[in-house]
């Protein structure tokens, strides 16, 4: 029996790892906004997804937006967005800070899918830094995928593009 103990321990350890869920809330919306604006959060603003904005949003997301009104927080050239998109089955919430039309910071706030949470790590989200929106609505940065997390990567890419597009709309409105 003794000689099987290490093997049994290894099996139990592996099964524990396999059962670990990727789900989690990594940062609250309030904490994200506090960090983005150094504690001085601007008043919330609204953008309506109607007319051409809705059409372009649908083009970026590849489906109709789930809501018609999106909140954002902005001061001068900086804006912060908290957006959601379904990866495979459950929504992923991300916070994006944009400055002068470029992504300054992108963070996964909540991940509810059972797998693919590698997208929350810095090594992945750093790839979005300084990305801007090209005229064809694609990101200027090349984003390397993660095997096993394709849909989560795709969701983050869509939200990054959407935030940049909505920021452009906000700037043109002002």
């Amino acid at each position: 029996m003794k000689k099987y103990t290490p093997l049994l321990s290894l099996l139990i350890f592996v099964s524990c790892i396999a059962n670990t869920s990727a789900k989690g809330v990594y940062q609250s919306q309030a904490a994200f906004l506090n960090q983005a604006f150094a504690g001085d959060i601007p008043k919330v603003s609204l953008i309506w997804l109607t007319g051409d904005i809705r059409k372009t949003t649908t083009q970026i997301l590849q489906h109709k937006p789930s809501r018609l009104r999106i909140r954002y927080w902005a001061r001068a050239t900086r804006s912060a967005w908290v957006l959601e998109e379904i990866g495979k089955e459950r929504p992923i919430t991300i916070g994006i800070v944009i400055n002068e039309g470029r992504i300054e910071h992108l963070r996964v706030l909540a991940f509810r899918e059972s797998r693919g949470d590698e997208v929350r790590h810095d090594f992945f989200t750093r790839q979005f830094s300084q990305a801007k929106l090209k005229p064809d609505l694609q990101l200027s940065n090349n984003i390397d995928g993660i095997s096993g997390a394709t849909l989560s990567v795709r969701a983050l890419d869509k939200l990054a593009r959407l935030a940049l597009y909505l920021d452009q709309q906000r700037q043109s409105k002002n």
Partner: protein
Amino acid sequence: MSQHKKPRIRKLRSMYIWHRYIGLSAAVLVLILATTGLMLNHTEKLQLDSHYVNNDWLLDQYGIHAPNNIRSYPLSDRWLSQWGERLFLGPIDIGESDEKLLGVLFYNDMLVMALKSEIWLLTPAGELIEKLGPNEGIPPAINAIGITKDGQVAVMAAHGIYIADQDLTTWQNTPAAITTWVDSEKLPAALRQRLLKKYRGHGLSLERIILDLHSGRIFGQYGIYVMDTAAVLMLFLATSGSWIWLIRQLRDRQRRRKQ
């Protein structure tokens, strides 16, 4: 008499006869198993999970009845109601929530619908504008929604009355606000009947029926054993069929050798 018995016994001992009769008796069950199995293999293409059965007898058999907790609120020209977890604006299905519906009102060309910890903003057609929750400053434990004397949206929550700004983006605790609260009312009979049909009709997917036909559960607790028997009979048929083929091959070979 004994001369008649002998061929009959021989007949009964013949694998060929058993194969024939078992094949015939299992045919109907095999047809059901094969057809439903084929359909289940292509559930997504056939969209079995998004087609629903409206047959009253079947719905009764499955025990799909109206929920006990139907809540409904009148708007100027229609009703908002909650059936179990499902929400309907008039006859339109607008979504699901496991939270209790507490009221709805018209405000700035929007429908403002209150649940226990969320406010949903909808277009008059029932399209979702935004869901407001604790992150959007909604006070905890709402138990009523209403309109103040000054025409502002108000909610009664655990810590008092909260009033929203014009865009419904911020909520202020205003204990002294004079508010007319929204009350629930009984759904008109005609709409109730229509929604009942819709609610029950959404409860039983075609996929469920096909699955239960395949497993035999649709015929009650003994149906499973009937389908088990069909599976055993199919195993027998496969074996007896192979056996008959083998015996015939051997006989043919022997006959050829003799010739």
